């Protein structure tokens, strides 16, 4: 008993001392001494911009160490009247919403600058001004349709490769599994890239890069610990676990992308281009192939296939709605990095699956190596098609 109590005491003592020290620094004027004469460090990040007829509304977050006071607002190099809620001074990690009655011009660019009390300016460019969607049934209808086309249909189409895969020889199946791994590596790298890019837009205090690190590595290890054991099991059960993991990884990835879609749509950041859908569906149908490849020999039920497709695709709708309603770069960064981590775990699981089936032989044959590269090339190629 005594031994246990003293162990607790030893665990807590450094923490108590640390807290006391922190209090001393904060209260004892050391900070004032260190900062003597230095101007405050100001940082404002634009989190959300919505346009209504004759009105701009911007939400900013203060990611810097000091409070920031928004004194004036300029739109297109003109001072403009505005209101700011809850008040002009935004505290660390606080938010404020600036409302500007401005006669913005449809489809043209506008630049908003916030002038702070110290004379610093924080600028945001509205690249293409369009009215933001309002939250009604039509809004959710559109996002459901977007999600259906972008997330669910391509994956469902990809699942139709199942009968073909079922009839394949083992070595060609391994080729397809390697192809799948290639597709996933491409997706994972893409998610990581997007996460880092989105992380750069996050207010400084939220440390975007570290969100990516914690999100991706944390997810990888968590899935490895929780689901890895199942995926390592012999036979159909293990392969099914791998398929579920793939669907989950793709789903998480698509959730992050859905967020981005919803946000950019809400911000009116793009032009119309219906022909792109075709390339886009080709691009994403490979996700269906990735899900179905590990269980090709197992005759899964249709309902299982549907559930796998839903797990991978439906998050796109959820993400799009969420992004349209309340986009936050922090959330987008987190979801994208979680997706990257999940995909990395899936690639490991796929490697194990093939390795186990090949027993003592090397995993890497011309077919599997070629498959992996081919998978990445397919993604690259269909990506080009969309870009065209």
């Amino acid at each position, binding site marked *: 008993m005594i031994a246990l109590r003293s162990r607790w005491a030893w665990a807590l003592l450094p923490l108590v001392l640390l807290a006391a020290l922190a209090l001393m620094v904060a209260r004892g004027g050391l900070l004032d001494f260190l900062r003597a004469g230095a101007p405050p460090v100001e940082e404002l990040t*634009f989190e959300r911009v919505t346009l209504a007829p*004759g*009105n701009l509304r911007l939400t900013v977050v203060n990611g810097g160490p000091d409070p920031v006071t928004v*004194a*004036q607002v*300029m739109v297109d*190099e*003109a*001072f*403009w*009247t*505005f209101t700011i809620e809850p008040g*002009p001074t935004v505290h660390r990690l606080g938010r404020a919403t600036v409302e500007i*009655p*401005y*006669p913005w*011009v*449809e*489809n043209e660019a506008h630049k908003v600058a916030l*002038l*702070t*009390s110290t*004379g*610093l*300016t924080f*600028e945001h*460019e509205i690249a293409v001004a*369009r009215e933001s969607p309002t939250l009604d049934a*039509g*809004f959710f*209808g*559109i996002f459901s*349709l*977007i999600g259906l*086309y*972008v997330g669910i249909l391509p994956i469902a189409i990809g699942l139709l490769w199942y009968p073909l895969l079922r009839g394949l020889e083992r070595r060609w199946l391994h080729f397809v599994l390697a192809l799948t791994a290639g597709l996933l590596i491409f997706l994972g790298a*893409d998610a990581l*890239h*997007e996460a880092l*890019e989105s992380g750069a*837009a996050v207010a400084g205090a939220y440390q975007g890069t570290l969100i990516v690190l914690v999100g991706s590595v944390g997810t990888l290890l968590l899935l490895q610990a929780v689901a890895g054991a199942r995926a390592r099991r012999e036979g159909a059960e293990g392969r099914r676990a791998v398929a579920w993991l793939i669907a989950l990884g793709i789903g998480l990835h698509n959730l992050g*992308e859905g967020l*981005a*879609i919803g946000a*950019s*749509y809400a*911000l009116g*950041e*793009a*032009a*119309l*281009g*219906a*022909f*792109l*859908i075709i390339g*886009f569906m080709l691009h994403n149908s490979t996700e269906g192939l990735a899900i179905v490849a590990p269980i090709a020999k197992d005759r899964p039920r249709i309902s299982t296939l549907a559930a796998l497709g839903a797990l991978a695709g439906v998050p796109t709708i959820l993400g*799009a709605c969420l992004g349209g309603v309340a986009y936050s770069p922090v959330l987008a960064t987190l979801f994208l990095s979680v997706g990257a981590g999940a995909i990395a775990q899936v690639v490991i699981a796929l490697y194990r699956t093939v390795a186990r089936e090949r027993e003592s032989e090397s995993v890497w044959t011309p077919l599997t190596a070629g498959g992996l590269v081919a998978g990445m090339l397919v993604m690259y190629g269909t*990506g080009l098609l*969309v870009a065209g």
Partner: protein
Amino acid sequence: MNHDERSPMSRRDLLRRGALGLAGVAAASRALSAAEQNLVRGAVSPPHGSHTPSNAATVGTVSGASIDPAVFLEHFDYGTVSRAAGGRTVREFRLHAVDREIEVAPGVWYPAWTYNGQVPGPTLRATEGDLVRVHFRNSGSHAHTIHFHGIHAARMDGVYEVVEPGQSYVYEFEARPFGLHPYHCHAVPLKRHIAKGLYGAFIVDPKTPRPPAREMVMMLNGFDTNFDASNEVYAVNTVPFAYHHRPIAVRRGELQRIYMVNVLEFDLLNSMHLHGNMFQVYRTGTKLVPDDFTDTVMFCQGERHILEFTYDEPGRFMFHAHQSEFAELGWMGVFEVSDGVIA
């Protein structure tokens, strides 16, 4: 400072485009209402309420500008007058440079360098032929000088005789030629020393005075509050929109004379445009016959003109830079013409 939303083409961009393409498809489908199609095409134009002219200005009032624009407008410093041997008029002025934080737009503070704690510095006024003696003391944190435009000896030019903090210098010269001249600090870096507020107007009246008129001084200035070598704020006499929020009362039929000096930095040109009227332009004020009769006149950096006009009709008449950007960033004012007595 902001994170630009536009980045090289990425998969997410493709998704956006694809998504919008789909939105187009969705709109085309009969399942959606007409309103939603509007939403997709964005075919809604802003209402006209947001066009109200009063929306296009700063919000709030300025109290810490170091000058009251209404007072500065018509205040002239004639100095301490004495007679030298031979009856010559001697005018002595005291200027000291001092650092001061000033409010350059409602709630926006700028670390200015000032003459006598004000931006612009006081408007000094003498008559041609007077002996002008300026006692300058530098109480600021950097070296400064006073460089007067006009005709004088080299050592009175305020360029090479740098006055270090804590030191003093006496500038002495004859006031000539008559006209409107700027004075400003000429310490290096020059641009920074002028932009931070070390400037003022120096009026030299002709020996035979100009006709009686209501006289005003307008310093066209601006402030680069974030030090990116371009101005955030433009103004007449430091406070943006000062005479827009509080119009200048003008008596109908009375001759108005403006001593207008451009001390703007970073922008090559400035201008003055008067509404509903035309003005006589006396370039540099060095002649008594006008050079031009117009409603828009251009000012290079350091250029200045005396403008004269009379309003025959009552009402509100705007005046502003015809660089619309400057006007909407603060260089805008209003003359309120009436028959009443000027307050």
